[in-house]
C-alpha cells in the first residue's frame, strides 16, 4: 500500500527531510558547524554581548555534569542510561562556551536512593531547560538563540525520559 503511495507521492515527506533522512543536516548544521569562530568570540575578546549569558549557562551545564558524575559514582547501576545524557551536556557546554568552562565548587549531594537521585537529576534538567528557553529570548546572537533552543529541547527530552525511568 505504501509502496504505491511512494510512487504517487512525489510531494514526499521532503518537508521533514524524511526522504534521505539526512538532507536536513546541510540546512540545519550542528551547532559546532553553524557557530563559526566569528559567531562566537572567545571569552577573552571584548564585544560579545552574550558573553555573560554564555558563562552563566555554561556554568549551569558544568554543575549538571557534576551531578551526573556524582549520581553515577554513587549509583553505578544507573550508569548505562545516564552516561549518554551526561555527555550530551558536555556537548551543550562546548557549544555555549567553546573555551574551557568554569569548574564548580563543592561536590553535589546525591540522594541515597537511586529513585531520588534520578528525581533530582530530572528536576535539574527541567530547571536548566527553563533557563535555556528564557535565555533564548534575550540573547543577541540568533545562532546562539538557536543553540539554546536545542539545548532546552534536549533537556526537555532528558526530563521526560528520566521521569519514565527509561534510557
Amino acid at each position, binding site marked *: 500500500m*505504501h*509502496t504505491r*503511495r*511512494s510512487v*504517487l*507521492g*512525489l*510531494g*514526499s*515527506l*521532503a*518537508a*521533514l*527531510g*524524511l*526522504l*534521505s*533522512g539526512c538532507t*536536513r*543536516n546541510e*540546512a*540545519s548544521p*550542528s*551547532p559546532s558547524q553553524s557557530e563559526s569562530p566569528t559567531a562566537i568570540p572567545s571569552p577573552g575578546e571584548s564585544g560579545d554581548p552574550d558573553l555573560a549569558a554564555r558563562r552563566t549557562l555554561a556554568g549551569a551545564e558544568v554543575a549538571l555534569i557534576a551531578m551526573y558524575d556524582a549520581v553515577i559514582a554513587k549509583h553505578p547501576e544507573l550508569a548505562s542510561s545516564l552516561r549518554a*545524557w551526561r*555527555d*550530551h551536556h558536555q*556537548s*551543550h557546554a562546548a557549544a555555549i562556551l567553546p573555551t574551557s568552562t568554569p569548574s564548580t565548587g563543592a561536590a553535589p549531594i546525591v540522594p541515597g536512593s537511586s529513585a531520588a537521585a534520578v528525581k533530582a537529576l530530572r528536576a535539574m534538567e527541567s530547571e536548566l*531547560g527553563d533557563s*535555556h*528557553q528564557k535565555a*533564548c*529570548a*534575550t540573547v543577541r546572537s*540568533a*545562532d546562539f*538563540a*538557536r543553540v*539554546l*533552543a*536545542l539545548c*532546552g*529541547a*534536549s*533537556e*526537555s*527530552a*532528558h*526530563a*521526560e*525520559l528520566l521521569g*519514565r525511568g*527509561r*534510557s
Partner: protein
Amino acid sequence: MTSYVDTLQAALAGEHAAVWAFPVIAAEVESLRTEALASRALHRLDRERLVAQVVSAGATPVGSEASYTLPFPVTDTASAQKLAALIENRLAGLYADVVRQAPEPASRTTAARSAATAATRAAQWSGTTSAWPGA
C-alpha cells in the same frame, strides 16, 4: 537568505506531513492506534498555530501535499515508533530554525517551546534522545 516567514513555512510543511503520517501509523499498527491518532490531533493544533503565524507575518500559508513518501515501510511497532520519532525530531530542528530567524523575543520563545515539545514527543516515541534534537 532564509527569512522568518520561510522558516515558519518550512515548519508548517513539516506539520502538514506529520498530520498526514500519523494516521498512516494508526492504520498500519493497531497497538499504536490511540497514540498515533492523539498525535495527529496535536499536530493539527500545531499546524493551525503556524497557519496563524504565517498569516500574521503577511504571507499565504503553504498547503499540504496530496500524499507523501515514507522514508521506510511502516509494518510493525518498531518501524512505526521509528517513523514517529523521526517526524518529531525533524520538527524540533525546523522549529529551532524558526528560533534563529524570529524577529523578536516572543516569537523566539514560541518556537523554542515548540522545539522542546517536539523533542519530548520524539523521546516518548523512541525512548531515547540525542544531544542535538533535529540534527
